């Protein structure tokens, strides 16, 4: 009984430790993580026609969930599920009969730099794939062992992983490598692989039908390449499962000059545990090893000699390969293999007569010691905030007479004074029940990575003229313009809105409607 409860209880403790600030009311708005009170079920969110389907079917699922639960609750459920699933999944996957090594794997997988960095950058859809991975592998292994009921597990966790294109691809490659292709009945492996391939169909079809250019700006390869955080460079950061491109989402403890010694300790333990994994579950060791190796190479591709050029050519010429430019996200199988081997390494070390319990407890605490600043929502960086009342007022006004909305300043990401200075994707497209035009270019420092929405290009050209915007925007079908107050700009950025009527003027948002001769400001 104690052993059965220990794993979920430890997973719960880790979840509470990481997500503690979410006990407060409001929404965590951090980079790509945007939740709103009720996300509308709108065609352009479900099936984007002007941009690449990066959030298909994720946005559709969030919109559907809004019909039964408010956004703040969905956000908490999803984030808690990620941590719980990751910890319990890794603990259960570990081939051992002992409890403590399972707990080592559980804490290790739910407390990685990878999870911390992707959590801070708000890619919770990708983290659902991270959390599903041990369960998916476990189900595939049970299929290998002849348990046909495991097909449901493969498809279920495959579906959870496939809420984003990257997660779906990782799930598909994982099952292709792990499935028992030679075992009977033959249809079983085919059904599992075909099922997971079908789960990728929404974003594949949306990608084929979109009017956006499927090729990406090669500048994105350098902008989103793995980043070194200490003297070991990007490869050292990747070896410790970190190395995300954005310095702002790297925890300070990863930038300590001693962090590489922690990574070295983990690698040494993992190397020591590799033999146990191969002895106990050779099929898992070999296949997960292949997955992890391939993921690591792809993660490092942009920083390897010759890799940048090849990747730049690929994303510029082959539609859809832009998914490879932020390669560090493909590190998740490596993170899982590292954690499993560390747990087995600690178990083996304990069995050598060096004191099983102290070694395993040390290994259990090791990830927390190496990354203490993930606790408490990365020391408060995941603190929820409330939307200013202006958002509800503007959304209600647009709701009454829906039309195309332009969000200004014309940029994809915002740094709001009311969001503790944190950067976040413009929430307006998800807050109002109308299509919203935003700039889809990505600015990384001084570098600008081109987007693919052709209408956004037309808006940029209109804004560049400094002339009245009413005519060119009306030509694009824009009815409403929302001007937002952001950090680093004037109270409201100056735009020539002659010909627009001021409909709502708040401290944080101003709403203009096209078709009036009044000059606003």
């Amino acid at each position, binding site marked *: 009984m104690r052993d059965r409860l220990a794993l979920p209880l430890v997973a719960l403790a880790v979840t509470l430790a990481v997500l503690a600030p979410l006990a407060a009311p409001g929404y965590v708005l951090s980079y790509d993580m945007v939740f709103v009170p009720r996300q509308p079920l709108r065609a352009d969110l479900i099936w984007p026609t002007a941009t690449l389907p990066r959030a298909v079917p994720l946005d559709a699922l969030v919109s559907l969930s809004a019909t039964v639960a408010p956004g703040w609750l969905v956000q908490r459920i999803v984030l808690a599920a990620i941590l719980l699933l990751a910890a319990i999944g890794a603990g259960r996957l570990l081939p051992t009969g002992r409890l403590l090594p399972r707990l080592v794997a559980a804490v290790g997988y739910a407390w990685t730099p990878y999870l911390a960095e992707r959590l801070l950058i708000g890619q919770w859809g990708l983290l659902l794939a991270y959390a599903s991975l041990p369960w998916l592998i476990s189900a595939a292994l049970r299929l290998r062992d002849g348990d046909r009921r495991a097909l449901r597990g493969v498809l279920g966790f495959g579906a959870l992983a496939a809420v984003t294109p990257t997660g779906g691809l990782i799930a598909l490659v994982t099952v292709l490598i792990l499935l028992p292709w030679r075992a009977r009945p033959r249809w079983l492996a085919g059904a599992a692989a075909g099922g997971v391939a079908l789960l990728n169909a929404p974003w594949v079809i949306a990608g084929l039908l979109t009017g956006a250019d499927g090729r990406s700006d090669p500048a994105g390869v350098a902008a989103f390449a793995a980043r070194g955080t200490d003297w070991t460079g990007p490869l050292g950061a990747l070896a410790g499962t970190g190395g995300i491109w954005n310095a702002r989402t790297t*925890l300070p*403890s990863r930038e*300590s000059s*001693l962090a590489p010694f*922690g990574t070295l300790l983990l690698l040494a333990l993992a190397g020591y545990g590799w033999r146990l994994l191969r002895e106990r579950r050779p099929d898992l060791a070999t296949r997960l090893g292949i997955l992890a190796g391939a993921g690591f190479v792809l993660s490092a591709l942009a920083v390897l000699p010759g890799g940048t050029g090849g990747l730049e050519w690929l994303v510029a010429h082959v539609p859809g390969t832009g998914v490879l430019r932020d390669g560090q996200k493909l590190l998740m199988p490596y993170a899982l293999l590292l954690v499993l081997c560390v747990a087995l390494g600690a178990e083996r070390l304990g069995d050598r007569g060096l004191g099983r319990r102290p070694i395993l407890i040390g290994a259990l605490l090791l990830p927390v*010691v190496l990354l*203490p600043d993930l606790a408490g929502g990365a020391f408060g960086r995941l603190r929820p905030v409330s939307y200013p009342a202006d958002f509800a007022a503007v959304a209600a006004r647009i709701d009454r007479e829906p039309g195309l909305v332009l969000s200004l300043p014309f940029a994809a*990401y915002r740094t709001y004074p009311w969001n503790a200075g944190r*950067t976040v994707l413009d929430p307006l497209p998800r807050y109002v029940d109308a299509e919203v035009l935003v700039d889809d270019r*990505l600015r990384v420092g001084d570098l600008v990575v081109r987007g693919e929405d052709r209408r956004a290009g037309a808006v940029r050209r209109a804004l560049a003229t400094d002339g009245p915007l009413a005519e060119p925007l009306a030509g694009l079908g824009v009815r409403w313009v929302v001007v937002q107050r952001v950090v680093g700009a004037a109270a409201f950025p100056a735009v020539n809105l002659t010909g627009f009527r001021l409909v709502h003027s708040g401290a944080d948002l101003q709403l203009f409607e096209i078709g009036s001769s009044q000059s606003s400001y």
Partner: protein
Amino acid sequence: MRKALPLVLAGVVALALGLIGSVAVASTLTGSSSEAAKSVTGTDAAPGVYGTR
């Protein structure tokens, strides 16, 4: 001596971990304040910046 070896090793490991952890926490504290300062004055303060390398 042989019996005491596990305890000695566990102590060494614990000390090493404690040292790494303390330095990590210390760097976290200095890192946090500089991060907070950057959030309003750095490149990221410019509207629309996704992040910095």
